[in-house]
């Protein structure tokens, strides 16, 4: 895995890549962040969090604690009600729409519910991400094959998501998050449908990606996965950070 080199990677992402050379800056910085959904109580409160470039961090906590919400702040799907969210040094709430699009090209996300496009095959689901950032059709094909092999799904490439098992769909989502070789990888419960062996394989891929300078943030319930990787763990409970483990 290398830093992003796609021809259309634009200012935000390029700056992010450039800043990697200066690791003094954090990849993620949340300062006193509060978040609530319409007509609800605060789902996140007084969140302070820093993740350095090249770090591997787990977010854990009970169901409904706010893990998914916290992650969605990082790629701008939700906007904090109070506080600041900096990604690669840029204040994400201040970005214009186009800038946000370009920033997102530098972030790979594995969604908890996969969010695969139902009317596209496995191959197209992943290739599409490459096309959207302007990679040529040929180059995209090459990269998609490579990443599908990584999650042992090369033979399923022409199937539609609905013809896949739960775990296979999850691996497609993982492959899609990896294909753009993003400087930041965010994964929400990426092993919920995987057996322990497969889960460990995926974690091996994440560790490898991390070794090649990608910052990794994983939300999970799965204690054995956390133990397997053994990196920093942030525990959320009722929307607040409880303790920062080793």
């Amino acid at each position: 895995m290398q830093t992003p080199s796609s021809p259309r990677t634009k200012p935000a992402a390029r700056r992010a890549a450039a800043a990697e050379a200066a690791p003094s800056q954090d990849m993620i910085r949340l300062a006193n962040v509060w978040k609530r959904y319409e007509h609800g109580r605060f789902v996140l409160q007084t969140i302070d969090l820093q993740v350095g470039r090249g770090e591997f961090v787990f977010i854990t906590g009970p169901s409904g604690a706010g893990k998914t919400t916290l992650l969605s702040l990082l790629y701008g799907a939700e906007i904090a009600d109070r506080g600041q969210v900096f990604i690669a040094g840029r204040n994400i709430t201040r970005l214009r729409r186009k800038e946000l699009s370009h920033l997102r090209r530098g972030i790979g996300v594995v969604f908890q519910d996969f969010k695969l496009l139902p009317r596209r095959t496995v191959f197209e689901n992943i290739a599409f991400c490459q096309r959207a950032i302007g990679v040529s059709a040929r180059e995209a094909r090459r990269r998609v094959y490579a990443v599908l092999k990584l999650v042992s799904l090369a033979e399923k490439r022409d199937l539609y998501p609905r013809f896949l098992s739960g775990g296979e769909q999850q691996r497609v989502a993982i492959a899609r998050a990896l294909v753009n070789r993003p400087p930041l990888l965010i994964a929400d419960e990426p092993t919920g449908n995987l057996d322990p062996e497969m889960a460990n394989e995926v974690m091996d891929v994440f560790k490898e990606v991390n070794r090649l300078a990608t910052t990794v943030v994983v939300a999970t319930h799965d204690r054995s996965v956390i133990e397997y990787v053994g990196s920093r763990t942030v525990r959320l409970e009722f929307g607040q950070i409880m303790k920062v483990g080793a």
Partner: protein
Amino acid sequence: MNRWLQSFPYFFGEALLDIRENRAVAALTIVTTTISLIFFGALWIVQVNVSDLIGNWRERFQVEVFLKNKITSTEKEAIKSAVLRSESVERVAERTSDEALKKFREQLGPNAGVLDGLGEAFLPSSYRIILRPGWRTMANIESLMARVRVMPGVERLRNDLTWLRRLEGAIQLIRLAVWTISALLGLGVLFIIANTIRLTLFARRDDIAIMHLVGATDGFIRTPYITEGVLCGACGGIAAYASLMLLYYAFFLPVLSGFSAEGFIVRPGGWHLGVLLVGVGASLGFVGSAATVSHYLRKQRE
């Protein structure tokens, strides 16, 4: 722009995919657009033909000056030169008593027998005043008639003024109707295409959200839908043109030729009409879809 062209096959493919997957709605839209554009085209044909017809009638419009039986040739000359002096007159044709009778016989047709045995010259002779094109307005005609009416040797005047008046009214009415209905039809097509795109967007809302999340820009997301709108509109235009031509040649022309006693020939619009229909369809498709997509994406932002 260059990049846009480069991506065009992708956009076009996506648009076709959308149409194919949403073919029920697309079919409905194209059918409705087609119907609207058929009416639009029919109106256009009607307007063009009515204009022609009315031009024809106007061409035939004239004032007839019936002369007294015992008119002197001086009086006749005086009348003719007075008429010819008027700017609005193109020429004056004399109709003798004999000619008038012949014309009358023709008009009576099979009943002309009733005139047999009557004196040859019982109809008055007359001047037919043919007016210059562009001078056939009511004001001109009325002033001319006022001048001629009082001249010695003039029995009475006949003109198609009431008819002309009715015709002008009818032209106004038809024009108004055509424009109003065309505008309504255009709005209808706009609404329908906008609706289709709205439906497509609705069906694709998850896709669009996911595309945004993985970093696709608005432009990248927008273009296939606009292409789809333009395609639908253009297809409607083509279908409408084809239908109109079919209707005209397969149905209207034979039936009309059966009834063509009037010698009145309806002309179809020719290729101008085709270009017009496809152009109008595609433009409405563009405006309808672009507005809807932009509105949708703007709403998403909030």
